[in-house]
């Protein structure tokens, strides 16, 4: 019997020992998948995760194409869209018809999908605290929070109600500031915009030590190593980009005082974002910087850009599918002024003779493939700061003076001080942001309901009520 008990004892002890190591046994790290713990426990991992956010921003579904080159520009009647064109339903504001509904669905799901990624990044950097040093963590968090605000803001501008009063209470969209599997309510527009402003302010605070403040944009030279923290700050949500976004958001809300304050803050350091040169715009034939990347506060890099160009704008694209404006419309926009860098550089009749009209060259590739400004799509430029400030200045003459600064750097003569600020700004928005997706939002903010029809000589009434996609609305 004694032996029996001894055996029992051994067995029990063995069992307890085994149970102790159970937790470890059941924590399996898969080899063919990348999981949270692996990523956020190394510095490289955190950087890759943050870069993943920027890459999803730059996809064709979002700012790589839909929200810059094509869909939102078509909403603003930029191009001549025949009825056989894939974007025809967008151009005619038939939002619920396919394929328009699919495009709008894609933008929505990808934007919110990226927001989920942002929130998950923020939660994980908090959960795995200490993987990166404090300053880096602060900057990374600031960037991510700013991206969250940026995406929500563009969703509001696209799908939200017209923000007609300073404090619009119209029902808008859900705001997600955490990863969850529960459904957030639809917020009134004013609450939604407060969330955006709060996020941007938080981001600005976290970005107090942003290297852009001390060392500027730091575009690396060819073959120079890219420092994830310091280099190419204009491709990241840097401190000034956040300030610029604040100016944009405040103006959208109708808070001109705050808009002016923030815009001026950026204008004060405008030397960090130098204007493009006439050499680049008018003489450089081989490798011009067509997007004026030096002026950029914020941009994305889409490695698919030139294949998008080939599909959308290239002269070889057939008349039925190319995105190009009617020649008369284009001439009206640029007032047929060949001195305008934006017109001269980016709009040409193809030398190959395949098209009789000017096509859009802004996103055409250049000869020198080592240039670092290739693949760039600007999202926020210093010029917009001047426009925001101009619109917000209480005195019209001050506004015209600000617009004239931009005009001077676009090869144009100054306007008379008697010019009407808003009329001139509308023209400027039309010229400045071709293929950058800002014009539709400008119209929507200014409640301009009738605009020139991109596909004809008449006017068209814009429908600003872009509906929530079906994948969202069927739960609401």
């Amino acid at each position, binding site marked *: 019997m004694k032996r029996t008990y001894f055996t029992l004892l051994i067995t029990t002890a063995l069992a307890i020992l085994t149970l102790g190591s159970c937790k470890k*046994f059941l924590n399996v790290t898969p080899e063919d998948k990348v999981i*949270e713990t692996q990523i956020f426990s190394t510095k490289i991992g955190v950087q890759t995760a943050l870069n993943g956010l920027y*890459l*999803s921003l730059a996809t064709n579904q979002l700012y790589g194409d839909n929200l810059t080159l094509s869909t939102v520009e078509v909403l603003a009647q930029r191009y001549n869209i025949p009825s056989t064109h894939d974007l025809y339903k967008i151009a005619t504001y038939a939002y619920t018809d396919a394929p328009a509904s699919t495009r709008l669905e894609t933008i929505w799901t990808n934007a919110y999908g990226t927001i989920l990624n942002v929130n998950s990044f923020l939660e994980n950097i908090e959960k795995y605290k200490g993987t990166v040093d404090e300053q880096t963590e602060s900057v990374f968090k600031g960037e991510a929070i700013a991206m969250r605000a940026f995406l929500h803001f563009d969703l509001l501008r696209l799908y939200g109600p017209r923000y007609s009063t300073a404090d619009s209470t119209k029902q808008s969209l859900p705001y997600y500031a955490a990863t969850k*599997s529960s*459904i957030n309510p639809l917020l009134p527009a004013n609450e939604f915009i407060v969330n955006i402003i709060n996020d941007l302010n938080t981001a600005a605070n976290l970005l107090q030590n942003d290297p852009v403040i001390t060392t500027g944009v730091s575009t690396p030279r060819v073959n120079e190593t890219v420092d994830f923290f310091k280099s190419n700050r204009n491709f990241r949500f840097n401190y000034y980009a956040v300030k610029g976004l604040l100016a944009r958001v405040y103006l959208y809300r109708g808070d001109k005082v705050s808009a002016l304050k923030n815009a001026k803050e950026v204008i004060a350091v405008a030397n960090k974002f130098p204007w493009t040169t006439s050499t680049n715009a008018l003489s450089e034939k081989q490798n011009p910087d067509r997007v004026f990347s030096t002026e950029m506060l914020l941009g994305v890099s889409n490695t698919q850009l030139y294949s998008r160009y080939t599909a959308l704008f290239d002269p070889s694209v057939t008349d039925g599918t190319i995105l190009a404006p009617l020649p008369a419309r284009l001439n009206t926009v640029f007032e047929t002024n060949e001195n305008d860098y934006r017109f001269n550089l980016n709009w040409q009749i193809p030398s190959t003779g395949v098209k009789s009209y000017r096509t859009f060259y802004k996103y055409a590739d250049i000869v020198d493939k080592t240039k670092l400004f290739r*693949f760039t799509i600007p999202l926020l430029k210093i010029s917009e700061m001047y426009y925001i400030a101009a619109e917000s200045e209480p005195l019209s003459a001050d506004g015209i003076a600000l617009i004239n600064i931009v005009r001077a750097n676009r090869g144009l003569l100054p306007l008379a001080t008697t010019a009407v600020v808003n009329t001139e700004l509308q023209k400027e928005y039309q010229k400045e942001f071709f293929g950058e997706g800002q014009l539709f939002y400008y119209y929507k903010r200014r409640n301009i309901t009738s605009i020139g029809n991109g596909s004809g000589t008449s006017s068209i009434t814009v429908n600003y009520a872009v509906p929530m996609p079906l994948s969202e609305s*069927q739960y609401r």
Partner: protein
Amino acid sequence: MIKIFTKRSVPKRTLLLLLCLYLGVKAYAQTPAVKGVVKDAKETIVGATIIAQNVQTGVRTTTSSDKNGVFTFVRLAAGPYRFTINFIGYESNIVTGIVKDGGTFSLSVVLKESSTSLDKEVVVTGTGINRRKDSFTGTTAVFSGEELKTIGNNNIIQSLRTLDPSFLQIENNLAGSNPNVLPVIEVRGKSSIPSSTLKDQFGSDPNQPLFVLDGFPTTLQTIVDLDMNRVASVTILKDAASTALYGSQASNGVVVIETIKPKPGELRFSYTQDFRLEMADLSAYNMMNATEKLEFERLSGRYVTSEANPVQNVYLDSLYNAHLGNVRKGINTYWLNVPLQTGYSTNNSINASGGDNAFIYNVGMNYRTGQGAMIGSGRDTYSGSINLNYRKQKINVNNITYIRGYSSQNSQYGSFSNFVNANPYFRKDSESLYLERPRTTSGSGFNVINPIYDALQPQYDQTKNSEFQNNLNAIYDISSAFRINGALQITKGTTTTKVYKSPEMSDFINTPTLRKGTYSDNRAENFSYQANLTLSYNKMFGQKNSITANWRSTVQQNKNSSYSSKAEGFPAGSLGNPRFAYAYALDGAPSATSGIYRSLSSAVALNYSYANKYLADFVFRLDGSTAYGSNKQYSPYYSFGLGWNIHNEDFAKQASWLNSLRLTANIGITGNQNFGNLSSVSIYNYNSNTQYNSFGQGLSLLTLGNPNLEPQKTRQISTSIEFVLLKNRLSGYINAYNKRTNPLIVPVDLPSSTGVFAFPYNIGSLTYNGIETRISYSPVYDLAKGIVWSVSLTGSTYRSKYGGFGNTLNTLNKQQENSKTLLRYIDGNSAEAIWAIKSMGIDPATGREVFLTKDGQYTFDYNTGNIVNVGNTVPVAEGVISTNLRYKGFNFGLGLRYRVGGDIFNNALYNKVENISSTSIANNQDRRALYDRWKNPGDVSQFKGISLTSTTPISSRFVQKENTLSSETLSVGYTFDGKQWLRAVGMRTLNATLFGNDFLYLSTVRRERGIDYPYARTFAFSLRASF
């Protein structure tokens, strides 16, 4: 390990038959002696162990039989004794008697070979914890290998479905009798939503029962390929009390398979030959002949055009005339039999065993080679096993080594439907790629591809698998009450699939030259180990209280990995050696997967019985696994059951008509773990290879994990009444159950603003209520004359109901709607419901279909909002009626499956009578498309206008009530035993049996069965000889 329980589990009934006990009184010495002899049916047994235990004092004495089979206990204290006689390969025997002072007690014990017939009174749970059925409260069904082989000789799955009413093989109408497609099996309905999103590559069907082979969980593939001649018994564990020992793997039921254990003695071996013939059953097809087809094409408007285009008109006229010319020439090709052959398979199985009392061995081998009913499809399997058993005193060590594998080929003829669709007015021709090419360039003709041409090009689609497995099991008897048992299994296997398509095939008509022809290569490896340790306790207290307790812990790891790559571009005529490929697939990257699944469990099982009348069972198991939420790694499972053996009550013992009557009821919670790994962890992925920026690569969230994901739990309440009446002539059982899975795990798409798709969510419930029965009666039961005739009936039915979804599954339902399926997930409705719009039939005036809206209006307009539950595929009753006649060596069996009252969506009507688009008019169609469709105003027809080529939506018009009767088995056999001529050739027994399976199928619904691969009728022959 099984032994200790087998010992105690020999029922009294058997004992009385086997045992002769005589007491003699001899004045001898003061201390009483007990003497006896141990025999089997023929001779005395040497080396049997005899344990004498004094029932009062518990003192045990052991001895063994000598070379004459004689044993003696020289000194035993007086008192009541229980003598247990053991010998390996034989059933244990227990004899009780009172030993008096001064008396001599003599015994003659006849042992029965344990494997010649299965002991049905033991419930093998596969865990090493075996139960006497008489004291167990769970619902189980036990079938011996012999029984399975009386149904058929293909595989045990085919036989089990005939024998047990709750074991259902779900019809796979696409795959038919394809030997390389695994059957879909359910025991007592489903326990989860059928969904592919939560299943990873290595997961199995979430509604499939767990298969346990010789004590370790295994795959369905292994079971299907298992040589039936190696099977000793199959036990189906259906309810919570019997399956709770398997905890998180148990909610779909457990099927426990035990292979034949080695027997000691001289070398003996047996040989079995199973030969099968398979012939495609095309009786369900009702295709047009050439004349009918052309007439149908004319009526449906294939040769007229609405455009005023003379060129087109001339072309269509000439096309019609060409076809008419073919018909006039008498071309009427029957394409259906082109890809078919008479399939066959032959299985050679050989088995040898022998050894002495301490060391026994068994070596088995089989090789089966077979061809399916479609040319080129085939499956070869082989297996070998070495089973070694060593036993000395308290130690028993058993080691089984298996090597097994298969090689399978898919038919080069591809899908059978290509031949069903081929037009009868074209001549069979193997030379050209096209049967017909359009003669104008206007694009209005169809390139008709010759289905034979592709099959004649060099190609292959083959899979090879080999697996090595070792099971080690050791038992140590610590004392008479305690026993410890440890087991370890290691499995390693590889599977390679290679598919080659030659550049000449029609797939590559529009492919650039350098990309014509593909070769893909997929290699998968698996390695797993499983180990368990069981501590058992078993004791009688007093005469009436019996307690059994077991503590069992298991640990398991499965590791899978696969790698696949694809090459393309082959020179014409290449036979498919990848050496000749031009390049890897354009923009193709190799794909690789790997997964580790681990689990731990610890279970306690208690059983108490009082005087064998009142029984109680309790099982508790704690399970940990990598499959669930990181916050909920462990989950408990339990069961509790009660039973009452009425036949052991005093009042029942007087009723001579009552042999056995038992009532049991139990409740328990079990789980379902057949899900993929890691639903609980957030998974990231590198942005695709085209996405990068100056900072390099990026990572994005691929799936958001749910760390709070709870395992699916199924609560099952079961009751059962089992009876044996009228001197064993009438026997049967009725089981009823309620099975409720709550919560389910469902991949839910939330509103897109959450960014979360296919998020594994605990939501909703699925409830099954069902009943199953088996009643068997023997009108003739004369053992003395060796004639037994029995008739039996099995039946089962169930109803299911979803609950608790609310509108959370709207997107899932929307997806079902978009992909035009018949499934919906809606509260209060059955999981087997058919969802479609209600049809009021065809309007005789216009030939258009009239629908019923939800508010009772008639409409021509199809609106998905009007889709309702229009039927249920579960029959009111399904089962098998069978009869068996045995007269001495002669045996006859017949089993017919009936299925009454289920609804079915008739795909033949939907796809081949209606929904014939303008392009598919060129395919051959069901005859009813010509004869039964509306033609003229006033026709009262079931099907819409013959010239309408528009899409017909899924409607209740295609849902039909189906009653079927199918012949699952017919067997005729004879066993020669102990005949003089047998001995002359060294044989002991010889059995020959003829089988017919699935040779008849009667249905009230005419629909196509076996779309991609036809169903086959099987005729088989088995020859078994033992030497």
